[in-house]
């Protein structure tokens, strides 16, 4: 029945990925946590600059720490007839989902979970966010919060298929769904360079499943905070941390998929992974103030009429190139 589970790797194992002992997962979570703090600090600094405060001193970098301390002391909110089980599962699930995403991302030559279908694993985890955000909206038995949950699903119908087809392109080019092998297949030429459409659509998907920037109408102020309207205290802290963690995990996954993994001069591979992740994450955080909100009803058509054909063409080009090469 349940036999030991050696992960069969497709083809010859030419990449030098080492699966580390499960205990090292703690380190993976710590790195994710550090990225979350850095992203929140950057967002705080950009917020402070945008609102014209803090010329000197910390300049908003310390804002997330103050906010975290404030939320930790705040009382949790309860609402009448709330479905607490589903509500808490939704709010807390985002962070867990981000951690599960990170397990298949190799840090240079080390990985926690060398799954042969790592790309699908990441995809399955980002679909979990559909359920979790809707549950966060549903749980508190509050109209505004439920509207927010539905807005997220409406966005989801627009962004998810383009995101899936964007993940297909590197997998075709690498002839593997193993994240380490996808990274190893980019010797000399990063996938971001010769499949730019897939790369951009992927980044759009990351922003979307983090309910970030243009995809934040689900949390909009016009509906009193949307899905997080009734979240207070530690619940809100966990939800917000989960959003940053998803953004960070998405940025980290872009590195082996599109940015050559740990490839780079001078520095060791693990350092290059971190540098590239931090750079992608910084761009995504910065974009928040630069791109207007996508209305869920209008974005649906953009997703289906523009993004899906564009990314399918990208897949076709990649497939033709790969057939030509072999």
């Amino acid at each position, binding site marked *: 029945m349940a036999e030991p589970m050696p992960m069969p790797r497709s083809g010859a194992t030419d990449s030098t990925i080492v699966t580390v002992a499960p205990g090292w997962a703690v380190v993976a979570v710590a790195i994710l946590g550090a990225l979350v703090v850095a992203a929140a600090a950057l967002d705080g600094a950009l917020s402070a600059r945008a609102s014209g405060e803090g010329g000197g001193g910390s300049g908003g970098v310390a804002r997330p720490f103050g906010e975290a301390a404030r939320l930790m002391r705040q009382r949790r909110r309860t609402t009448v007839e709330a479905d607490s089980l589903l509500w808490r599962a939704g709010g807390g699930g985002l962070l867990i989902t981000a951690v599960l995403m990170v397990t298949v991302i190799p840090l240079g030559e080390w990985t926690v979970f060398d799954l042969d279908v790592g790309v699908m694993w990441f995809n399955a985890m980002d679909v979990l966010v559909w359920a979790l955000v809707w549950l966060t909206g549903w749980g508190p038995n509050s109209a505004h919060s439920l509207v927010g949950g539905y807005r997220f699903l409406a966005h989801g119908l627009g962004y998810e298929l383009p995101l899936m087809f964007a993940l297909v392109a590197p997998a075709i080019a690498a002839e593997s769904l193993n994240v380490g092998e996808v990274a190893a297949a980019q010797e000399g030429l990063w996938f971001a360079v010769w499949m730019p459409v897939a790369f951009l659509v992927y980044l759009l998907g990351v922003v979307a499943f983090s309910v970030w920037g243009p995809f934040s109408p689900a949390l909009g102020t016009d509906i009193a905070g949307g899905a997080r309207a009734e979240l207070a205290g530690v619940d809100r802290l966990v939800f917000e941390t989960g959003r940053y963690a998803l953004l960070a995990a998405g940025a980290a996954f872009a590195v082996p998929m599109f940015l050559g993994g740990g490839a780079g001069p001078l520095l060791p591979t693990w350092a290059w992974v971190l540098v590239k992740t931090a750079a992608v994450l910084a761009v995504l955080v910065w974009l928040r103030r630069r791109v207007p909100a996508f209305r869920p009803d209008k*974005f*649906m058509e953009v997703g289906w009429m523009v993004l899906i054909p564009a990314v399918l063409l990208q897949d076709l080009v990649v497939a033709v190139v790969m057939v030509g090469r072999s």
Partner: protein
Amino acid sequence: MTVLLDIAFWALGLVAVLAGAAVFYVDSMARATYALALSFIAVGLQVLFLQQNYVGVVTILMMVMEMAIMAVYMVMFMGMNPALMPMSMVHDHRAALGVAAATFLGLAAGILVVDWPERRGSPPPDVTVALGEALMGEKMLVMAVISPVMVATIVAGVVLAAHRTRYDRFGDNLKRRPADDPQAGGVGR
């Protein structure tokens, strides 16, 4: 290690069965939907133990997405807005229990009574490929032909079901641009 994996496998099986039963026990649409999702996730993880990694992960992916959409439709279309108030998830209680129990006993008896064959040879290195070959094999051409037909059927069904036609959208001579839609799209068609 093998014992641990055995325990995990059977525990997941237990979760799958209990969550499946919870679908009919709970009194809310959302809980029923996500109990079913949990059951499917447990089954997907069990499939990972059978080394069908692709099949297992795809099961989780598809089922969670499907349940997220199903919850929306259940809340949207059920009469009397029962999604927002407690309601029983079973119909015809007695008969349903009888049928369920009989089916379960029948299938369980099948498992115990059937003379399971001995394994011949050893499993291939990539069991997912082997499963795909066994399921599709020479029928691949048929499947490749059927899939566009199925997509065309879906599109035709949606076109027939929609109460607005292109004449409603573009006017009698189909010249009106942009279209007159109750809900404007994002690309200005």
